[in-house]
């Protein structure tokens, strides 16, 4: 097994256990004690805080163009965001973004 394989399995196991403990937390151990208000407030924003932080650098400096900002990928990202905002439908936004991406890549090839 290579070092990379070991790292992947380590991530899978620890992430699996950690995620399980998060899900189990109140239901399994803490019971009826309420989450403090400030914590509940902050927890509501975890997805909107983490996911854009991962996506933003990948959009602006894509790996495939060796970090060169790419109008095609920027447009595809904007279309995804726009369709997602308008329709509130994740799947539709993905489809619109991918069609934009592949369409523009095809036309500019």
């Amino acid at each position, binding site marked *: 097994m290579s070092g990379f394989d070991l790292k*992947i399995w380590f991530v899978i196991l620890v992430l699996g256990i950690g995620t399980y403990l998060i899900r189990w*937390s109140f239901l399994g151990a803490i019971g009826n004690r309420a989450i403090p208000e400030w914590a509940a407030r902050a927890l509501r924003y975890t997805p909107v*805080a983490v996911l854009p*932080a991962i996506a933003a650098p990948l959009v602006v400096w894509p790996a495939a163009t060796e970090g060169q900002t790419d109008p095609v990928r920027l447009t595809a990202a904007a279309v995804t965001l726009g369709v997602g905002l308008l329709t509130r439908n994740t799947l539709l936004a993905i489809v619109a973004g991918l069609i934009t991406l592949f369409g523009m890549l095809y036309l500019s090839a």
Partner: protein
Amino acid sequence: MLTPDQRRALARSPAQCLRHGFVQSLPFILVLVPFGLLFGVLSAEAGLDLAQVMGFSVLVLAGASQFTAVQLLTDHAPTVIILLSALAVNLRMAMYSASLVPWLGDATPRQRGLVAYLLIDQTYALSIQHFENNPRLRMDQRLAYFAGTAICACVPWLIASALGFQLGRAIPESWALDFALPITFLAMVAPMLRSPAHIAAAGVSIIAALVFTVLPSGLGILLAAPLAMATGAIVEKRMERLKGEL
């Protein structure tokens, strides 16, 4: 007084509750299967083998965090950063867990342990709604309904991950699949931008992540995420106070 719907729900046997949960969960297959396929495809591109892909989908069973982990593995980010980022994505599930306590808190430890494993966005959303609409359900009816939603949502996710992996190996490198992940994340975030607080949080997250790219890989996320969470919480509080004053 009970509505006809409530009376029907109360009269169901556990087996019928399970079937009811299963049927109500069916529309989610339309979302979960493409996601699972995409996860399999991207994992194959990242160099994972089938056992690892299934390891993620069975042991972690949380889409967004699986995508996060695979992306950061591809970037060769340090293990600690991969784990913290992916776990942060799942923190919202602590809220799900807490809000189910009034409904499932009296189940046996074993049953609660199993519910915890199957607690994903879809099973939670359906179940909490069903429990709140039918507060008089017995515990076995609640658990059976939850089990129905879980079977319907989780099994297709596993199958789709495996199929996606096979598909990923067949797709030529020249396809711009590198960009499927940012598109997926943007598409997940856009419908969440319901309030000024959510928009402010996402905005801070983006700006901070771009500024912090000068830092070693992955570290930027760990700094950007808490900043963005704090922003969301503060803006929410401000908005509430404004509303109170009006």
